């Protein structure tokens, strides 16, 4: 009987997390449009519902009823699969992130994480690289030269920034002594890793921005030169899926920053999930804020920065942190 209960618990947890996550992702799009509007001294969407609160719903319905176009030149199977790959990777990353402690429900101890696996951090890195396949394949399969250019840029950028991204989290592994995200959160009781390991936090934010293709690293879809790049031929629900995947990925990266550097779900007075959401939305606010602040970089500058500045700095950071831990300073 116990196995059946465990199975039911897993299924319910999965469904609840995915539904809640999709709700937050939908409203992150509204938050971005509202905040970006305010940063550019305009009101942002405010027509659908009070304060524009029903805008995400209207967007969803609209894109659902648009005509779905598959170009003649497209590689049809891959063209259809690509948005799904993006969304799948972004959602499955969330499986290992702990968003609360344990709660007791109906007499059962429930751990607020979907899969508490031993190699959680490596799993996150692995899934993040798979998410980029959606962008690369979508751009290529469109059979459009701008799409291929966007795909090439996405691939090159991912290869360049994945290395600093991996190196930036090594310090947290050294400090926590574990790859399990639950144990990493537990190790930050009393002091967050952002205090002990501030440069790692900065490097992770920069490399993470490149990973989710946001300004100033939004090379694959830079609209002024590539006319939207990898998603140029996409329309209707497939385009919407790419958009949802992008925002889900942004939400997940914010959740990873929260877990690795900002103490995860832990905090005084309020329950764990509430603290988790507060911290995640603080990071998302930063992502939107910097999008409204910085211009897009030039492509060769991004490559130069990744290999010749970020990579040596993150390497140095790992060496210094390891030395400090070995000497007993941290």
């Amino acid at each position, binding site marked *: 009987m116990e196995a059946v209960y465990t199975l039911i618990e897993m299924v319910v947890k999965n469904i609840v997390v995915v539904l809640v996550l999709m709700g937050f992702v939908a409203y992150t799009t509204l938050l971005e449009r509202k905040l970006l509007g305010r940063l550019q001294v305009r009101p942002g969407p405010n027509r659908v519902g009070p304060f524009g609160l029903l805008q995400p719903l209207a967007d969803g319905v609209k894109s659902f009823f648009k005509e779905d176009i598959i170009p003649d030149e497209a590689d049809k199977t891959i063209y259809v699969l690509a948005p799904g790959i993006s969304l799948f990777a972004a959602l499955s990353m969330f499986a290992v992130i702990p968003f609360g402690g344990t709660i007791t429900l109906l007499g059962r101890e429930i751990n607020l994480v979907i899969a508490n696996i031993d190699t959680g951090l490596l799993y996150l890195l692995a899934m993040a*690289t798979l998410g980029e396949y959606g962008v690369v394949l979508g751009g290529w399969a469109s059979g459009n030269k701008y799409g291929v250019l966007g795909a090439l840029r996405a*691939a090159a950028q991912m290869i360049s920034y994945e290395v600093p991204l991996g190196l930036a989290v090594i310090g947290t592994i050294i400090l926590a002594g574990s790859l399990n995200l639950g144990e990493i959160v537990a190790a930050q009781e009393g002091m967050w890793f952002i205090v002990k390991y501030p440069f790692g936090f900065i490097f992770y934010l920069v490399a993470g921005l490149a990973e989710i293709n946001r300004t100033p690293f939004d090379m694959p879809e830079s609209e002024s030169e590539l006319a939207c790049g990898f998603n140029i031929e996409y329309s209707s629900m497939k385009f919407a899926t790419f958009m949802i995947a992008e925002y889900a990925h942004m939400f997940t990266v914010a959740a990873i920053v929260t877990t690795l550097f900002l103490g995860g779900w832990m905090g005084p007075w309020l329950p764990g999930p509430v603290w988790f959401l507060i911290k995640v939305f603080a990071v998302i606010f930063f992502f939107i804020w910097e999008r409204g602040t910085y211009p897009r970089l030039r492509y060769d500058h991004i490559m130069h920065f990744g290999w010749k500045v970020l990579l040596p700095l993150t390497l140095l950071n790992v060496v210094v942190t390891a030395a400090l831990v070995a000497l007993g300073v941290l």
Partner: protein
Amino acid sequence: MIGIGIGFKWFIFVVAALVATGSSLMMVTRKNPIHSALWLIVTFFSVAILYVLLNATFIAVAQVMVYAGAIMMLVLFVIMLIHLEWGAQWTSSRSFAKLMGGIITIMLFLQILAGVFTYSSVGQHGIYSAQKLAELGNTRAVGGLLYGKYVFAFEVASILLLVGIVGAVLLARKRKD
């Protein structure tokens, strides 16, 4: 309960093994190199599932991260960059290469068959039993062996990779003439 667990494991093993074999067949028979690369990614994935079934989670995740993620992305990048996907239809006409490939494949297959039927795989047990791995943690065990007992081999392998990088830079450098 244990019976169900083993049956489930067996089911997953069969599915993963079949997908691995099928996708590697698809990989070598596709005309478009991008499709081949994608089928290779599927193969890497199903092999990673086999690693998980063998309690080697670290190797499994590393396989997905390094091979299915980074290396295949590089392969896709190169194929797209030099536009191989439109001009690679010549492979079908080379009958000599096909013949040699067929002979080599049959030889390797016979070798594997001979190995399976003549060698009984009762080797000596290592010190890392499933229980010990569970209490030590998989990553910790691999890391301890890699940087402890086998550190020399590990460093030699890394020097080899470094030589590869230096060689690639040397070849790609612009010649001053």
